[in-house]
């Protein structure tokens, strides 16, 4: 991997560069004394690593999120840090020429390029005389599944950005009509997952940089998520946590309690079951995050959150509300997620997550 390290061209201005290094060291949990070493390592690198970015069943929200990066800027990422050899949303080439670029990238850099996946893979077979497995998505006449197998198979690492490529996402929720799966599950491979809806670019970039600097991927949790970003619970680091502890809750949008920034647990916040660093790094250059905007967390970094965390305005069950509150436990508070729908969702989620990784032809039909 040493010859494949990052190269930052001379044009990257020094201040921005050191900001990047500082952010990397913070994201990776290193001390600020590491900043000069990180800078040195990056500057020594020779050739920009090849990135092949694939789009499957997706909304392009994760590409959009990625280009909201500010330190480093998108121009620095595209021109100076990475070699983004295939990315349908930004590439100049189209059609045959685009296909040629993909072929070239995965042939010339076999075993060295990073595959970044956005979107889920449909694995079911559409009805009709010509339907075959995976036909819910074709690009250049090939199914998404075929393309994913080929491209991910030759990559050094597969990084899944967003909940869709990580776990199937929005289209995989009940009843999952297209048999949508995360890339890891669909192909039976291990992937680095950077979930979120969309993911936070700070986390994808920190993951790539970890690889560039150390030649390895960051430590992952049981859901394939880098621990540096997904080890801590929203609820434990929430800016509104003190209000939860004091039993101060918002019970109606726009209310006096909402104006005071009280806890959103009773409005359906899923922070107590969600592991993500959005309250620390925030979004869009630290401008905000959902709970800051007065809306509960919906748990978008969690597998199958569309089923497990919904209805989005229903209260989580089993959360102990501390002293000082008006109620003793969450179970006594009105509606919970326990209804028939909630149980169904939990069962579905457990099944999805526990499903044996295989490449057989079951698709979504068995769900």
């Amino acid at each position, binding site marked *: 991997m040493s010859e494949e390290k990052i190269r930052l061209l*001379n*044009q990257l201005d020094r201040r921005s560069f050191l900001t990047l290094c500082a952010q990397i060291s913070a994201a990776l949990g290193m001390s600020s004394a590491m900043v000069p070493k990180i800078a040195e390592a990056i500057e020594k690198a020779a*050739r*920009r690593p*090849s990135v092949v970015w694939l789009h*499957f*069943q*997706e*909304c*392009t*929200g*994760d590409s*959009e999120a990625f*280009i*909201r990066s500010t330190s480093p*800027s998108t121009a620095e990422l*595209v*021109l100076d840090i990475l070699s983004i*050899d295939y990315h*349908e*949303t930004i*590439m*100049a*080439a*189209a*059609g045959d020429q*685009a296909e040629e*670029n993909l072929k070239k990238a995965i042939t010339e850099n076999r075993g060295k390029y990073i595959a970044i996946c956005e979107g889920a893979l449909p694995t079911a077979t*559409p*009805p009709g*005389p*010509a339907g075959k497995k995976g036909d819910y998505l*074709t*690009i250049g*006449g090939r199914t998404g599944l075929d393309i994913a197998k080929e491209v991910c198979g030759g990559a050094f690492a597969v990084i899944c950005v967003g909940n869709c490529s990580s776990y199937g*996402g*929005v*289209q995989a929720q009940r*009843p*999952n*009509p297209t048999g*949508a799966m995360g890339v890891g599950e669909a192909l039976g491979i291990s992937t680095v997952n950077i979930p979120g*809806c969309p993911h936070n670019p700070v986390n994808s970039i920190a993951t790539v940089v970890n690889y560039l600097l150390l030649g390895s991927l960051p430590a992952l949790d049981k859901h394939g998520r880098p621990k540096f970003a997904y080890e801590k619970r929203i609820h434990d680091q929430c800016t509104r946590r003190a209000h939860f502890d004091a039993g101060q809750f918002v019970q*109606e*949008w*726009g209310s006096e309690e909402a*104006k005071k920034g009280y806890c959103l647990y009773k409005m359906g916040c899923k922070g107590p079951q969600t592991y993500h660093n*959005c309250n620390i790094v*925030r*979004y869009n*250059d630290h*401008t*905000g*995050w*959902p709970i800051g*905007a*007065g*809306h509960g967390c919906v748990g978008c970094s969690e597998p199958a959150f569309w089923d497990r965390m919904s*209805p*989005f305005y229903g209260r989580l069950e089993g959360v102990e509300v501390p002293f000082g509150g008006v109620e003793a436990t969450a179970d006594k508070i009105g509606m919970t997620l326990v209804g028939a729908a909630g149980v169904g969702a939990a069962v579905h989620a457990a099944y999805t997550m526990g499903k044996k990784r295989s490449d057989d032809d079951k698709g979504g039909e068995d769900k």
Partner: protein
Amino acid sequence: MGTKVVIDPVTRIEGHLRIEVEVENGKVKDAWSTGTMFRGFEIFLKDRDPRDAWYITQRVCGVCTTMHALTSVIAVENAIGIQVPDNARLIRNLMLGAQYLHDHIVHFYHLHALDWVDVVSALSADPKKTADLAYAVNPHGARSGAGDFKAVQDRVKAFVNSGQLGPFDNAYWGHPAYKLPPEANLMAVSHYLDALALQAKAMRLHAIFGGKNPHPQSYVVGGMTCVQDLTPDRLAEFLFICKEVVDFANNVYIPDVMAVAPFYKEWAGIGAGLPNYLAYGMMPANTGNDPKNLYFPRGIVANRELGKVIPLDEKKIVEHVSRSFYEGDGALHPSAGETKPYFTGIDTNAKYSWLKSPRYDDMPMEVGPLARMLVGYASGHKEIKEAVDGALKQLGLPATILFSTLGRTAARALETKVVAGKITSWLDELLANIKRGNMETWTKFEMPESASGYGMSEAPRGALGHWIEIKNKKIHNYQLVVPTTWNGSPRDKKGQRGAFEEALIGTPIHDPKKPLEILRTIHSFDPCLACSVHVIDPRTNEIYETKVC
């Protein structure tokens, strides 16, 4: 029989699109547009809490991210019969306005410009002459000195010399259809990079009131949750970022479009396409749900007659399936449709797309910035008329040039100018409300046992409608008819082409192996395919009649 040309994938768009054309004597004789991906939104919306619909449908598109959220809450509010507080109207307008400023700038520079701008040619530009050109185009432009352009040129040279061309590899550079001089190319490349930085900052506007972008998270049925952000510091943050974005729109984006256009005047006679234009309108100027309140008006311009606007009758919208991958050849209203999927593979003589074909009063329609500008123009909208007439005068061209690929691209810039001129007035209104002590952001409601309704608004790429039916307080049926389904639709039962297809007819093709000209016209629509595909259930063969937007 002419030469068959297929572009798959069409890049620099949202989603997965395939375009096939037949070229004869150097011109496009016929064209077929195919959507190649679908997901199934309608199926999983069924039986959901109607309050969750905005969050789910927002994931239809991460480019027009805020649009589905907004249209969904409008649909549910329409169904249950409530009106949101004035502050919620204003915050929604501010977020929508920010979306337009961002989306149109990104579309022009990052999705469309490389159809007109030759990056390789920029390497041979004279930076001093480029600075002179930039000054002539707009004396107020920032980062426009010879040194600035030299730095960009050096950076691009170093990039090219690295031998790793990344996203700029293997494009149509050097194609004879590129007409700009090297200096104009260098100026455009420089602004491409400036716009990359600007767009990231611009979307902080969503994060102020929505917590994040893409997919802001402060919508709720009945209003907005961000009451804590109605503070002087947050409003000031919004105002000053907004001013920077407006400045870029007025002093970089719009002048660039006006500077590039004269080199491509022949494209004012190419790509006209359909003669009918539809706009649902958007951005309510006053409290209340009356469509007459919309700042961008609702209506139809038919047969390119700018003398009158036909009022929209929602009941006249139907969708055809005769050339789509569904059984039969029916044409039904979005709230009543039922179809069965029937995947045949692509056969341009029969069925060839997962997109249905929406039609209004049996006519195919174009939607998008051009449609909104034409409907506004024909409605006598003051700011729209001023923007359109001013641009035509500057270019010395008649209004008929609007009906073209160039007109579509220019209309997007003119619309940006109108939004840029309006957006801060909503901030003023919001501030006035706060000064009066009005902090209301949400209207209380009871979810009815059953109700039905629809919401209409405008995504940057065109008219967007959601239809909802509620039973037992849950979603019984939910449907979306989205912009790129109108524009990218296949033929209907009568054989009438969709807007993309019609616009390609007659397009000159210099080299069928490098069909740059096709990309120009297709990109002028700003396609968003994720939004356009239908939803089906493969196990029951039921189709839930919505385009997954």
